[in-house]
Structures are given as C-alpha cells and as structure tokens.
C-alpha cells in the first residue's frame, strides 16, 4: 500500500464489503452469486476508461453536469456568519442527485446484458430517474413503491408511467420504502437471469454501498475544483453538510473530502417530530442501534426484539429506517458528525431558501439547510460551508402547502 493510503479513510470497503464492522453481504444464497458477479463486473468497469468516458458524456449532455456551485449571498448575509455555498444538484435532469447513480448502474447493466431493470423508490425521485434512463436506453423498468407513497406522490407515479415504467404499489409489511426494497429483492430472487436491481442509495449488500458512492462522488469532486476556481487554488470548504435518507447524496459530497482533516463533515438525519422514545423520526444514527437489514449491517431503527420500526418524516425521501454502512462507520470512528433536524425546522429552511435565494428546495436538502442555519451565525465570515442542494422542491409543494395551511384544491 502506498504511504499516503495507510491512514486513508477512502480505502473501504474491504474484500468482504465491510467498513469496519458495517456493511457485508447478508443476502440469501440465491442472490449471492448475482452480487458476486455484479462486484466482478463493477471492478472491471471501474478501471475501464471507456466506462467513465460514457458516463462523462451522459453526465455532460444528458444530465447537465457539472452542476453549479453557487454562493448563496443573501442567505449568508441574513445568517450573519459563514459564507454559504450550495451545490446545485437540484438542477440535474429529473431534479435530484439520484440520476448520477442511476446512469452508472444502467450502463453497467447494459454491459452485463441485463434487459430488465428493477428499482425501489420512496418519494419517487429514484424511481423517476431510473424510469428516465431506462426510457433512454429502451430497457424494461419495474419500480416498487410503497402503496402509501403511491398515494402521497401521485405526480411522480404519473411521471414514471409516462416514461414507460411499470409502478408496482407495495402492500406487504406496512407499504413503505423499506417494504418496497423487500419486494424489489423478492423480484430479483425470482428473476435472476435477466434482471438488474438498481438500488437508489448507498445501502444494500456489497458492492452497492461502494458502487453508488463512487457514482455519486462526482458531486464532491466537482465541489473541489469549483471552489478552488471561485475562492483560489487549494481552498477547501471548512464544513460540508448534506441530508441523509440512505445517505447517497451525502456520501457523494463527503467522500472526496474524507482525507482532508481540516474539512468538517456533517450529515443531517430526519428528526421528524423529534428524536425521542416515541420513535417519530428517521434518525438511525442518533436514535437507532446496529443491526442487519437489506443485505448490510448498519444502524437501524428497531425495537428491543430486533424488529424493524418504521421511520417518520415529513420528507418521503428520508423515510428509511437504516443508513448506508459507510456512514455508520464514519460515525463510529468520529470522522463525520451526525445531527438531526425536525420537520418544523426543515419547513422553516424550505421557506427561507425560497424567500432569500429564489430556490425552491426539496424537503430533503431543506434538512441540510436547516442545520446550516443553526451553525452559520456563530461562524466567522471566512468560514466556507458547502451544503448539498440535492433536489428541487417541485414534488414537495403539495406537502408543504398542506403544512402551511394553503389550499391547493
């Protein structure tokens, strides 16, 4: 190992897919050969320049990368402290960071000769991104979505159908995102030959957490050179902040900065109605404990008997009882800090972003912004915060209107 990697935080996962004690491959035997094949194909693609050339071309001409790094001047002024930048991944095609990862997985699926793509979705953003890329490449697409979310997120359901995807409302369990993931896994076990499972976040069995992170890392890589361009050669952010559902947009922003100890890293979980014993939140790190679900060991919301609990959040995209295993590891070793933000605080940030910056954010990054609002005032003016504006709020205006008592009917 080269000297500069010995103390690196970027070497994970190990050959067993572990980040420390987290991660792994906790899947049924039927799926095991499939994820081993996927890992082998991904290892090949990773070092294949033609793979990344294809990604770059689509990122540029289809997604619209690089996304801008934007100095939020009025917001910074209003908070009266740190200098705040927003990484504008909400400007991507389909309106969120999700497509960064979907492109990578679909290109891989095509290389593997798979003709049918399945995905799980909560708010519908990952489902829409997957349906979009499948339409572009003429692939069959089936999206599993909790029946409850199908009701809550009708516009995204219609989008997916327009894009040619079959949306399967999931009624198993409690009909939420985790159940959608269960049903996607059940589909994969049944259709092992032609089907590729496109997971939407840095969770699942190895190699998904690492692979999805690598595809999303384009976010942090761009921030590095964009900030140097705007603030001077070698200038790094002092703090990076991102919201966490499963943790993919956050890993994408964090990963390129893990080995820069001067960069403070903060992940923001959904605190729902508040992180307390009533469990009306989705803060797996703050309010959960280690367990095994969906192929990996990580922090989970669970009861004393190891039964998985439902998360609760105003944001359907953060509504997952687990978190990617790499975050669990970064949390335990102390390289990143994890905090939680309540629904109410997120709604406040949502409105502030609209009013001061003319940017309607998704409810997910509103959580990240709400934490920025908490810390920025006490920081010096030359302290640079980069927050990940990972999605736009079009999908959320109905939920927000309801909370603000505005009649949309």
């Amino acid at each position, binding site marked *: 190992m080269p000297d500069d990697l010995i103390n690196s935080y970027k070497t994970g996962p190990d050959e067993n897919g572990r980040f420390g004690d987290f991660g792994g491959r*906790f899947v049924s035997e*039927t799926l095991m050969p499939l994820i081993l094949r996927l890992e082998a194909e991904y290892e090949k693609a990773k070092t294949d320049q033609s793979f990344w050339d294809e990604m770059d071309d689509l990122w540029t001409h289809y997604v619209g990368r690089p996304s801008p790094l934007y100095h939020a001047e009025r917001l910074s002024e209003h908070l009266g402290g740190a200098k705040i930048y927003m990484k504008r991944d909400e400007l991507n095609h389909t309106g969120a960071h999700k497509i960064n990862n979907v492109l990578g997985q679909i290109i891989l699926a095509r290389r593997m000769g798979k003709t049918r793509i399945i995905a799980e979705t909560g708010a519908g953003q990952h489902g829409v991104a997957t349906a979009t890329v499948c339409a572009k490449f003429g692939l069959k697409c089936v999206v599993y979505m909790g029946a409850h979310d199908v009701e809550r997120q009708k516009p995204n359901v219609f989008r997916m159908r327009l894009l040619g995807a079959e949306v399967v409302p999931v009624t198993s*369990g409690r009909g939420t995102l985790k*159940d959608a993931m269960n049903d996607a896994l*059940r589909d994969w076990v049944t259709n092992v030959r032609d089907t590729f499972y496109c997971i939407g976040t840095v969770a699942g069995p190895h190699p998904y957490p690492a692979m999805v992170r690598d595809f999303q890392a384009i976010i942090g890589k761009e921030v590095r050179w964009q900030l140097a361009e705007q603030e001077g050669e070698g200038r790094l952010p002092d703090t990076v902040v991102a919201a966490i559902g499963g943790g993919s947009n956050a890993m994408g922003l964090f990963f390129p900065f893990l080995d820069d100890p001067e960069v403070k890293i903060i992940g923001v979980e959904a605190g729902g109605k508040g992180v307390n014993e009533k469990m009306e939140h989705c803060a797996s790190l703050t309010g959960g404990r280690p367990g095994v679900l*969906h192929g990996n060991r990580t922090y989970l919301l669970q009861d004393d008997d*190891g039964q998985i609990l439902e998360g609760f959040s105003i944001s359907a995209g953060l509504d997952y009882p687990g978190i990617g295993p790499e975050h669990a590891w970064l949390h335990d070793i102390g390289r990143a800090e994890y905090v939680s933000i309540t629904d109410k605080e997120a709604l406040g940030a949502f409105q502030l972003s609209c009013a001061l910056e003319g940017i309607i954010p998704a409810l997910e990054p509103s959580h990240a912004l709400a934490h920025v609002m908490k810390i920025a005032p006490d920081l010096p003016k030359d302290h640079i915060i980069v927050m990940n504006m990972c999605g736009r709020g079009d999908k959320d205006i109905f939920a927000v209107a309801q909370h603000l008592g505005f009649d949309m009917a």
Partner: protein
Amino acid sequence: MTRIDAKFADLKAKGKKAFVAYVMAGDPDYDTSLEIVKGLPAAGVDIIELGMPFTDPMADGPTIQLAGQRALEAGQTLDKTLAMARIFRETDDTTPIVMMGYYNPIYSRGVDTFLSQAKEAGIDGLIVVDLPPEEDSELCLPAQAAGLNFIRLATPTTDDERLPRVLQNTSGFVYYVSITGITGSAEAQATDVGPEVARIKAGTDLPVVVGFGIKTPEQARSIGSVADGAVVGSAIVSQIAAGKPVAEVLDFVAALAQGAHSA
C-alpha cells in the same frame, strides 16, 4: 450426534424419506401455535421448522409474510418462540426442531446469548436465510461450536464452483431450494429437482431435503422420491391463515406426511 443426525439415521434404517413441516411460531397466536406444534409429530412430521417472525422477511412470499405479521401482532417475541420449544421438549425429546428466520432478531439478542438460550430450549438447528457462507463467522461457526446444526440453503443459482463453499460448514442436512424465487411461489418439479439433488449429493454425505413450492401430498411424494425428504411450509401456513381448527390443520399435515413417506 444431534437429534437431527439421529432422526436421519433412523429414517434411513427404515428406508423412509423425511417429512419436514414449517410453521410460524406464534401464528395465529401463541396458544394455538403451541397446540399445532405439539401435534406435528403425531401427524407424521419428522422434523419441525419453527419460523421466527421478522418484520422484513425478504425471501418469503405473501403467505409467510402475513403469518409473521399475525404472530408479531399477537405479541410473539424471540423469548416466546424459545419458550414454545422448551415446552415442546417436556413431552418430546426426539423430534428435531430447527429455528428458521432472519439474522437481525438473533444479532439483536447477541449471538452467544441466543445460542445458549436456543440450546437450553432444546433447539437442534438453525436456518438463517440472510447468512450466506461469506458471513460464516457471524453465526454459523459459533452455532456449530455450541453444538447446534447450521443448515444451509443451496439454490438453483449455486453453481458448481460455489457449491463446495456452501456445503463446507453445513451440518444436519442440506436444504435445496427448488426454485429461484420466494416461498410459496412456483411449483417444484421432480424432473428438475432430481439432477440437482444428485449434484449436491456428489459433494456431501449429508441428507438433502427439498423445499419451496411443494403444496400437495402428491408433490411431497414425487419430490421425496428424488431426495432425502420434502419440506412443506406455505401450504400448511395457508390452512392456519384460513382459520382452520387445529385438528383440521393437523389432518392436512398428516396427508402431506403420508405423501412424503410413501416415496
């Protein structure tokens, strides 16, 4: 020699195939479930698979998913499942009990604590769906060390290259999953299963039983004829789901057992 080893030795001596029955512990409620489990040996069941309910059973079809939900809603816990085994053992010291489920409730309890509690309760083996050989150090090896059999699933996707690894730390018997899919789905075909069982037997001296997709006495007989035994789960659970009285559930089980035993 565990109760499982003894059972297969006995069956072999009698020239009989094993009939393995799966029920979800605590479905539809603790008392009824215990009554059913207690009645299984007399109905001809050679080995009992006792399902441990879990909120996220990703390898199970709707029938067993719902059974788990019913059990959890009725208040089933890991302690109660262990208690069922303990009470069963008071009157039956030979019928093997295999606990089947998912890893998290075990991990949550603590592997060492769980193993000593399971052993004490009279459990003989474990089938944990989400622990492939790659994760053997988690539970498989500690379980063997504690004197419990760890029964592995082999599947149609387990190719020749992988099979030795799957067989390596397996004990008690090998459970061949006859279909690619979830429990309770497609029908298993003896013509497909026969060669697969032979392939596995070429790599191990352990008995090979076949499960997933066996629903009728006739299927139990035809699968039994090409393997060392047949497992039926969803079909029995469906009887419980339909609210059949315990006696009727056990009659249904007895017919399946007769099918397997006539192989």
